[in-house]
């Protein structure tokens, strides 16, 4: 299992970019995906993120990271298809008093692509940015170092935690514990056999990480320094132009009434173009 993101060393232009530039790009993508629900627009946004991933030479790991979420996306599309109020029916299932509409399918696809875009953009940021640079960038735009570090550590220790989860699961299965038990109650009880050890080893680890932090003077000086300062260059300018152009053009399109599947007007009156 690899549904976590971590730094992938490299020397691509995206790796060498100022983290503030990447944070701006991230903010733009986070914003524009919320503007639309039409799969064509969200699909284009998603492709633009994959383009950046390929410039960062991490397209393959990025797709690998996204693939386990595929099932979840199918689920999203199914659910929206069933509950979204649309006007253009494709199939009508009379007995269930249910109709599947074009709008519902489109909306479902859109939501799934929005979800994938958010995952991908976050992955690209984490995979191409050294943690120290990211925290320095965050600090320069006003996020305190310690708070940033807290978040970063969570990302850092997630893979360790998942490894540990796998090991515990294996250890318990090896002594005859069937996690795939027959009833929900026994399954929940067996899950405890994994969660209790996981919790205990995690507590231990938190203590050990604490010792490591203390003996390396974490938080010792108010004037924390950084070995390398950030340098913005031409590639940062290019990326900023790209991000701003993306934001402006998409906002204009949205104001012009594009990119929303019809049904939303019914749900939220006044939200779509009039």
């Amino acid at each position, binding site marked *: 299992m*690899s549904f976590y993101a*971590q*730094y*992938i*060393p490299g020397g691509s232009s995206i790796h060498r970019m100022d983290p503030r530039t990447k944070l701006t790009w991230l903010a733009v993508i986070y914003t524009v995906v919320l503007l639309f629900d039409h799969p064509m627009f969200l699909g284009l946004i998603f492709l633009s993120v994959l383009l950046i991933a390929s410039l960062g030479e991490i397209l393959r790991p990025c797709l690998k990271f996204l693939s386990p979420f595929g099932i979840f996306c199918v689920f999203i599309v199914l659910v929206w298809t069933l509950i979204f109020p649309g006007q253009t029916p494709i199939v009508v299932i009379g007995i269930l008093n249910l109709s599947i509409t074009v709008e519902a399918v489109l909306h479902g696809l859109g939501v799934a692509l929005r979800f994938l875009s958010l995952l991908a953009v976050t992955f690209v940021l984490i995979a191409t940015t*050294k*943690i*120290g640079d990211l925290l320095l960038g965050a600090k320069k735009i006003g996020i305190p170092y310690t708070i940033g570090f807290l978040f970063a*550590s969570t990302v*850092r220790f997630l*893979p*360790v935690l998942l490894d*540990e989860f796998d*090991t*515990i699961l*294996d*250890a*318990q*299965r*090896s*002594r*005859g*514990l*069937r996690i795939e038990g027959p009833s929900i109650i*026994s399954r929940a009880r067996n899950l*405890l*056999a994994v969660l*209790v*050890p996981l919790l*205990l*080893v995690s507590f*231990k*680890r938190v203590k*050990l*990480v*604490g*010792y*490591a*932090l*203390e*003996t*390396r*003077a*974490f*938080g*010792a*000086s*108010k*004037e*924390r*320094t*950084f*070995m*390398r*300062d950030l340098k913005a260059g031409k590639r940062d300018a290019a990326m900023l132009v790209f991000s701003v152009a993306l934001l402006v053009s998409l906002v204009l399109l949205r104001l012009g009434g594009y990119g929303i599947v019809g049904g939303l007007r019914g749900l939220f009156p006044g939200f779509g173009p009039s």
Partner: protein
Amino acid sequence: MFPPMSSVTINDLTFSYEDSPSPALTGINLRVSAGEFVLLTGATGAGKSTLCYCINGLIPNSVRGKYSGDVSIDGVRVADTEVKDICIRVGSVFQDPESQILTTTVEEEVAFGPENLGVKPAEIQERAAFALEAVGLQDMRDRFPYALSGGQKQRLAIATALAMLPQVLVLDEPTAQLDPKGTEEVFSVVKDLNNRYGKTIIIAEHKLDDLLRFVDRMVVLSYGRLVAAGKPQEVLRNQEVRDNRNLRIPQLASLFNLIPEFSTYPIPLTVESAVASVKTALGARRYKPNVREQEAKLVQSEIAISMLDVSFRYPNGVAALKGISLEIGKGQYVALIGQNGSGKTTLAKHLNGLLRPTSGVVLVFGLDTKRTSVGELAGHVGYAFQNPDHQIFLDKVFDEVAYAPRRVRKRHDVDEIVHRSLELVGLQGRDQDFTFTLGLSERRRLTIASVLAMQPEVVILDEPTAGLDHEETLSVMNVTKKLQREGKTVIIVSHDIPVVAEYAERIVVLYDGQILLDGPTREVLTQVELLDRTYVKPPPITQLFMQLADRGFPRDVHTLSEAQTTLSHALGEYP
């Protein structure tokens, strides 16, 4: 007598942890001078880690308890100083490599400490370069530390400590989780820091065989008290130390202590010095083989497990096993050895279906693991993992062992099985104890009992002796012997070569996903050149006897008792 410049001074130090009734350290007095290399040793729970924490200031600054006495580093009292002011004087390296990595590249990791101190960027770069050079990681500055090998991770941890420019380095069992290759890397870096950079080294360790030769002074702790301190040769002759059943005395030292003729010879710290002493003692005498020479042969028995041309590839594409064919007979005692990444754990996980071959077939008592669930196989093959923390989850010993069998058996049967399993691992009468009050070796035996409760015919133990002292090692390994006598097949996965040599009758050596060697223990252990390829060294005793071959000694001596009788025999024959 006072050393010229005292680096670390400990005066009458006593410490008890907050929730513990008895002190972890009692009345410790110790002076370590600048540039000295000091080894702290003693049983599990003897106070080694506690003493390390008292020197690096985590005690009493972060870990609370009752503290009296005084520790100072170059005149700076630890108890009155914040950890951030101590860490520029004392660098710390801990046991677990994973918890010490906090950033995303090797270079950042080394810069992290100095950055926290507010050191100027240009100087941080100099420090990082120096620290990485000192541990030999200068070519890996852009690597992702999480992906390094265990030995490299610990060298990185040493570099991060060095970047704070301390005079003293305190290492708390830095090799506890490493394979022999990683251990060798760490020891050689530590020796180098002492020799070339004059750092004061204080290291807590169990693995004495490869470390003692570098050590200026050996300090033995027992139940929180300092029982001996001095040159290793003297300390190992000390009667109190020799009587300490918990201490893992190096093989060669034990051998010299066991044979009266060697009482006038210095305790050997290396195989070479042992060879020289033995040859001097022998004079012109030779070993005359007698009829007892055992044939190194494995008893043929029915096949329990067979692997046929098994290959395995992890989902990330790494080929971990490449065409393994192996048959394990009923009632055999087999050891799987090899470095981390050689495929030994992957192989072991194939034996109970946790992993299924990408190609090839694994048959367990005739069952194809591809078509049998792990749950079903658990009734044939039990697998106890290395870290008991990954398995124990209930309060009471009885419930823990009864948990899995309860699901498949009647209540009355379960009671009997649990008691029988606890008896086998020597935990009889402890069924109502709370699991969290047990020590490491008891917890490990408890996990073996819970595996036995499924009544498997084969028992696999992953690193059964990791982190255990001498007495505890014996308690766990005697369980394995007992299991074999009960007719069970025992498979251990281990880095602990002396233990493997002592207990296993057959060794399978893995290297790069393939079987490098497979045969009776005494045959495998003398294949020095092949073993060397995977950084495995025969036990010191076997190394000694191989160099005594020109005096007629058998080359394949591999247990302490065998070494003692063989040598005594040669020495006693022509008095």
